[in-house]
């Protein structure tokens, strides 16, 4: 056990935990960030994606010790932002959501992509979300949604 301090959605958190615990489990079981989903547990599906110092990571692959003094944003924090609102609208309009289980992770991936590249091409969007599996939509409506958000959210990213 060790005292581990980090920032979660702009709040400083300090917890006593084994540094080897998966960040995903700590986020869900202890901090009730249930928007962070477990789909595969091996870093392949992206359902557990969060932002770690602004970069997308799969929280099932991150030991808690690695987030010491770092900043984590989950969907619970991200949904308070203007960027989220723009993406949410775009996802809704384009029909990008079916079962919804991949959606929070997909939103995080969309944000991570747009931060780096505010005007991505279709191909760049495909590459940008290729670490997030979706079994319902066939991806195209998600791709259109990100494209739409990049246009409507002009200046936000």
């Amino acid at each position, binding site marked *: 056990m060790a005292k581990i301090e980090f920032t979660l959605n702009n709040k400083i958190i300090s917890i006593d935990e084994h540094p080897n615990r998966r960040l995903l489990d700590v986020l869900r079981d202890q901090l009730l960030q249930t928007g962070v989903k477990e789909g595969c547990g091996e870093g392949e599906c992206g359902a557990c994606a969060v932002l770690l110092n602004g970069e997308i990571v799969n929280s099932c692959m991150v030991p808690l010790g690695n987030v010491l003094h770092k900043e984590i944003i989950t969907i619970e924090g991200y949904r308070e932002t203007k960027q989220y609102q723009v993406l949410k609208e775009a996802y809704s309009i384009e029909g990008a959501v079916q079962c919804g289980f991949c959606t*929070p992770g997909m939103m995080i991936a969309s944000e991570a992509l747009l931060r780096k590249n505010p005007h991505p091409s279709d191909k760049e969007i*495909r590459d940008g979300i290729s670490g997030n599996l*979706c079994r319902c939509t066939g991806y195209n409506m998600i791709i259109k949604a990100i494209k739409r958000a990049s246009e409507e959210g002009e200046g936000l990213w």
Partner: protein
Amino acid sequence: MKDISKSINKVDNEEKISGKAKYVSDYYDVDYLYAKTVRSIHPKAIIKHIDKPDLPEGYYYVDYRDIPGKNFVKIIFEDMPVFAEKEVNYVGEPIMLIVGKDKEVIQDIERNIKIDYEVLTPVFAYKDSAVHYHFHKGDAKQAFRDYDQIIKYDYDTGYQEQLYIEPQGMLGTIDGDKVTLIGSIQCPYYVKNAVISILDTSENNVRVKQATVGGAFGGKEEFPSLTACQLAVALKKINKPIKLIYDREEDIEVTTKRHPSKITLQAAIKNQKIAGLRCHVRLDGGAYIGLSGVVLSRALIASTGVYTIDHLEVNGDVYSTNTVPNGAFRGFGAPQMLFAIEMFMNHIAKDLKIDPLAFRFEYLAKQHDQTSTQGTFRDPIMMTELIHKAMEMSSYIEKVKAYQDENIYKGIGMSFVLHGCGFTGSGEATHINAKVKLKKDDQEKVHILIAAVDMGQGVKTTMKKIVAQILEIPLDDIVFNHPDTDFVPDSGPTVASRTIMIVGGLVARAALSLKKQWTIGEEVVVDEHYQQPEYIKWDEEHFIGDAYPAYSWGVNVVEVEVSKVTYEVTIVGSWSTYDVGKAIDERIILGQADGGHLQGLGFGYLEVMNHKNGHIEQKNVTDYIIPTSVDTPMMETVLIDNPYPLGPYGAKGAGELPLVGGAPAVALAIEQAINHKVHSVPVTPEKMMEMILNGKN
């Protein structure tokens, strides 16, 4: 009146995008114990002895001896035990649960359990037929006596895993005699009935609630009845809330999959025409029958695809093997059969040196034709329109010509498909007898009370649209919560592309009568139940009559490039046209079209799963590859209205249709690209290399 197809914002977008939607693993409302399943490591063995370590306080074993009722999962046959007793029949078969507070302690306990097995010889070959069906139409025998030539090919298809992104999960609580199960499920009443049976208790003692479902595709049709039964038995023994959530490996290894198949088709050819057709479908059922017989019958009924063949003989078998039981998966036997018949029609044409397109056109079913089971295609069939539209969208003719040269390694393929909507045969009337309820409360809100589950296909939105449009009230005045068997009647399972057509039809009828009875400030309740149209007759024993009340139709065109070096396939384009009657929400149907078709394409060229001595070899998403965003082309889809008189606003089934034509379309495209006949899906680079190197055609 506005067009119901005009898309609206789905009612659950907000909660799903924000991460607020509650899936089964998201319940932290009370302190749940965790359950883990101890499983067989052998495909066939006798359990001689189990050496179990003593348990720390607060930890429990739950096995067959704790079951109050009969040790079977109530599905169709009483063949699959909830916990193995003396024998195990597949790798991963559940033997017992370990239940307790700490997952790590549970794992330690599991490691120290020693099971002494007497290992027996497993069966993997297709030799023990557990279900056999046979039917015929016309006089196939005569056709096979008087012919110019016989053309015969074998086709085979592999496993397919649903790979919903949310693994299986169930949780339960107990209060006195009453157990409540909350699960990621498609069929609340299947679960309820199975639990009543395993606990040997009364209806009032079992409550089943749906959590938000993170994808299902058939994988959460019958399988969750097993976990619910296990959990219910544990709840009775332990009397505390329990969670049973699978991780991905466990989910892939032990849950139902699409049946691998071997299909033999034979045509008796006379004067360059099909005089008769023989079909034999063999499905690998796995260790227990479950729904395999029903899957087989859907496959058999689809044996002639979209074509009218006058003389037909059909046989089918489900084989018992010592492998994980196979079960429901979007399409339910039709994807295997439609792959085989579409390839076969093309292969016959090629062997006869007739243009495949012209050859297939010649046999296209027309309105009033007899179906494969001597029923009637009663409603207008718009295949010609669908085909011409798809060909125009994809520039099919030009591309077929352009890619004729062997060395181009490009190809275009087109599949024609149909899908019978709703349950096969008289299932709706005899097995389900769906009931629905609408309640208007004294606050003028209308509650939709049905057991249909929204698993992403948008049923919450579409049902609300139907009711709103009929009652001419805003969507916000309609309440449709996740089904809870304490409040909703049994409107049947959420399967078989029946939800909108059958349940939606009943909801529409209920809404019409509610409109007439509407009294301001008072509660009004309206019930409706299913009545089979009189003209639909079905002889289940002989497969004679109308197997389905209606059919949806579709055309898929797929264009591929195959690498000359690695034989890797790139899907360049995908164009589809569908007749689903009438879309209740166009964007929702287009979403079904994209996602379903991509699953069908995956089945056709990408998704490989095998077992080795009964052990599934691909147990995670690193090994079992499904399409990602970079594997997916843009997809263009056009819907053509062809309203079905008995569906709400003319709607028929739509969920399965886009999947069933994926495999033949991509396989035909690859066939052109590599200039070798394809008989097996998924068409992997290894198979292509073998075909090309062996020169087998």
